[in-house]
């Protein structure tokens, strides 16, 4: 909710804290602040109002009352302009307006017919427009601007009809099948009896609670108006607003259950403002239909209950002090206290809700940290998770590296609605992505001096016949010849897994669905039977005291291609190959990503040993050229010659 600092200030006679201090206080005691912007001489603060407080805080008044509780200074007035008018006082002094409610989704409606004269120059209207524009609203015409201002100020949505375009009276009814309504922004809606409309004797004039129609639209020339201030069912407004794809400031407030109570004060405030901005204002007719309902609600708290929930000792007196700060009234009843809150606070029904009000005003920073008692147990019960972790450990010890791929893929047995194309089905296996990963990664093997890419994933797959299942998938692709994963090795791994599972009391044959596609070998096994037995086995296992191997900080890999060169050098037997690596580092410098010794060979009867290195060149900034690399290699060769070593 965007609010203006100067607008907020109008609620207080004393100056508010500086905007930075105010924002800090709001953040610590009420709500998150999305942004603060200096605009003209004002600050526009975007306060994030969440669904629980949207029933009362989507307004300057609601936020002002919160600020009042936080800074411990009461609001000096109930609305920004201190308008004190109550429409109920004129109810019997004017003719009744023809109004009927024929819809189950509207339980309260007020219609005021009035006349507006010329706008007073340089007065309240200019200020109203300025404040509206400051929070990003458009000025449309004086009547609509007042209606919009009232909504932004106290939260109640209002609607203005041009009385000259309304025939007969107003009925709140369901739409007829196929009834057409053209909205204020010229969108044509075809309605059904599911929709609720505000209508006159001949036409639908507005989609109730959501959007006005163009038929009875007001303009700068409107002199006679009908002011709507009503209450519409929150669920209904939300459903219809979603179906028509129309979301407005008004529909947002209705769907967050702004209380019927505000309709009357909204109408009163608007009429009071109209009187201030214009001469010759008259109220010609008025009617209200329906019930506002109870205006308060009571819930009971005890200091024990509040203290236990917050974890601090608060006496009843302190609890009630905070309740009073928030504008609630209290009455003590022995050890308990009845807290009466306005019925429009839909976030307060129980003691836990009051505990939150007290806790946040008291200040969560003042709540100390305490630790739960430690557990004395040395062993813990067997569990499905522990077993999956044991499987993970086995595979890691067998030199498979763990990956985690996407569940949402382009093809599967379960379709996902409204998902991006290519990511709109649930995967039925892990093997498909595993194969892609292995093949894709083979090209990077040299960067890490790997002879084989060996990966695994433990994750869920989804099939119609088995539902959701946890699968273990591991596989490998050789980079060097003869490094293909053998069936024997796969069997070894599976046997190890089976033995490990036996220790957990699980009999599970890890019969692999072995896939071989050329040199790629993949195994995928379901863990369903493990899951079914795991939690049933009442075995005890050692507490998880995982030897956490510390892992390094991540440095991002270079996006540029690498170049590989091999060099093999004969050195006299017994000589350290140091000189070779020193030369590589000296001439390659930062451009050498890795050098790996991959072969040592004693030439018979020669007194020489051959050391072969694979050098991987890569830059973080650019693509290296063959010429650059040749140049570095030539310098290394030159070094070798000067040392008397033979390059093979």
């Amino acid at each position, binding site marked *: 909710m965007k609010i203006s600092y100067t607008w907020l200030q109008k609620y207080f006679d004393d100056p508010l804290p500086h905007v930075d201090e105010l924002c800090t206080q709001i953040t610590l005691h009420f709500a998150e602040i999305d942004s603060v912007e200096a605009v003209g001489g004002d600050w526009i603060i975007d306060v994030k109002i969440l669904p629980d407080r949207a029933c009362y805080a989507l307004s300057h008044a609601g936020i002002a009352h919160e600020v009042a509780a936080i800074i411990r200074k009461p609001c000096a007035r109930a609305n920004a302009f201190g308008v004190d008018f109550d429409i109920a006082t004129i109810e019997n002094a004017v003719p009744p307006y023809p109004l009927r409610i024929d819809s189950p989704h509207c339980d309260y409606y007020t219609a005021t017919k009035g006349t507006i004269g010329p706008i007073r120059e340089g007065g309240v209207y200019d200020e109203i427009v300025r404040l509206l524009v400051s929070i990003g609203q458009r000025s449309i015409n004086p009547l609509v601007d007042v209606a919009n201002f009232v909504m932004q100020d106290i939260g109640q949505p209002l609607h203005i009809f041009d009385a000259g375009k309304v025939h007969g009276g107003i009925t709140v009814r369901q739409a007829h099948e196929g009834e057409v309504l053209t909205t204020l922004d010229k969108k044509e809606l075809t309605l059904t009896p599911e929709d609720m409309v505000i209508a006159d004797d001949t036409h639908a004039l507005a989609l109730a609670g959501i959007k006005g129609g163009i038929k009875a639209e007001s303009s700068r020339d409107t002199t006679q108006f009908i002011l709507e201030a009503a209450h519409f069912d929150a669920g209904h407004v939300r459903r219809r607003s979603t179906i028509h794809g129309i979301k407005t400031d008004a529909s947002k407030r209705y769907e967050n259950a702004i209380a019927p109570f505000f309709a009357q004060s909204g109408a009163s405030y608007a009429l009071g403002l109209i009187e201030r901005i214009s001469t010759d204002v008259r109220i010609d007719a008025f009617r209200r239909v329906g019930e506002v309902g109870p205006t308060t609600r009571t819930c009971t708290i005890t200091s024990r209950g509040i203290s236990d929930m917050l974890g601090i000792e608060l006496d009843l007196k302190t609890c009630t002090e905070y309740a009073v700060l928030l504008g609630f009234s209290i009455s003590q009843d022995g050890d308990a206290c009845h807290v009466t809150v306005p019925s429009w606070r839909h976030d307060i029904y129980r003691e*836990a809700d009051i505990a939150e009000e007290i806790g946040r005003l008291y200040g969560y920073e003042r709540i100390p940290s305490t*630790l739960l008692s430690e557990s004395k147990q040395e062993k813990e019960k067997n569990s499905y998770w522990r077993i999956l972790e044991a499987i993970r450990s086995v595979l890691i010890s067998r030199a498979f590296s763990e990956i985690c791929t996407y569940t949402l893929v382009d093809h599967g047995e379960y379709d996902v*609605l409204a998902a991006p194309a290519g990511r709109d089905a649930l995967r039925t296996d892990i093997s498909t*992505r595993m194969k892609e990963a292995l093949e894709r990664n083979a090209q*990077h093997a040299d960067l890490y001096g790997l002879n084989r890419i060996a990966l695994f994933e433990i994750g869920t797959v989804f099939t119609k016949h088995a539902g959701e299942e946890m699968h273990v998938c591991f596989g490998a692709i050789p980079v060097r010849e003869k490094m293909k994963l053998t069936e024997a090795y796969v069997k070894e791994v599976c046997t190890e897994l089976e033995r490990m599972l036996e220790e957990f009391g699980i009999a599970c044959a890890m019969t692999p669905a072995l896939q071989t596609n050329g040199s790629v070998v993949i195994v995928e096994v379901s863990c369903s039977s493990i899951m079914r037995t795991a939690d049933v086995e009442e075995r005890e296992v050692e507490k998880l005291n*995982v030897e956490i191997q510390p892992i390094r900080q991540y440095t991002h890999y270079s996006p540029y291609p690498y170049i590989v060169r091999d060099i093999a050098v004969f050195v006299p037997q017994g000589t350290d190959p140091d000189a070779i690596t020193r030369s590589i580092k000296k001439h390659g410098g930062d451009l050498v990503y890795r050098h790996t010794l991959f072969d040592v060979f004693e030439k018979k009867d020669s007194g020489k040993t051959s050391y072969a290195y694979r050098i991987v060149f890569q830059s973080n900034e650019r693509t290296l050229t063959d010429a650059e690399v040749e140049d570095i290699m030539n310098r290394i060769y030159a070094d070798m010659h000067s040392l008397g070593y033979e390059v093979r």
Partner: protein
Amino acid sequence: MNIHPIAQTIREIASICSAFGFTVELGPELETEFYNFDALNVPKDHPARDMQDTFWVKTPTEKGERQLLRTHTSSVQVRYLETHDAPFRILAPGKVFRNEATDATHDAQFHQIEGLVVEPEASMSSLKGMIEHILKSFFKEEITIRFRPSFFPFVEPGVEVDMLFKGTWMEIMGAGMVHEHVFKAAGKTGAEKGFAFGVGVDRLVMLKYNIPDVRLLYAGDIRVTEQFA
């Protein structure tokens, strides 16, 4: 050879919490509307449903219930409460899904760990202590946290937890006292006392290991996994 940093992090947190008797429980990723929303006090037609973008699955269950990919690990809370009596302390790690635009800090799938403690000792104070302890032990340094008033339908009071990291306050997890509605949905009386927290594992991983883009965690790329050797 190398463990994935997400699995590593889950193990670390489980290990930190095991000294306090937490066990680790798992729940389904393909969840029903009831466990993901209604049981957690997020009714249909309520604006609270807008707080998360959901991946709805086309086929309903055999019983005709709507299915979705769970949007949080909180769905495990009611499942566990239904079949277990207090007192208990559990962690529930796992994959969760949000139908959001993807970028360096958001992906359609990510991992969370849920913590749920139901016992008389549970309070906002012991909640603060537990969260501080976990973060301190995980980042291996003294950390400062703060609670900010916020809202999640399944806790009351509800807070966002910020952590002071490298000089800036950053949002690290949501937490609060378990809402009465959640207990009742699980067949309990509603007079129980508990606290819960939910933390994004990917976030923790990115902060601790200095990873610039969350999508790197799901790329299946050895240029990422080999970094952690």
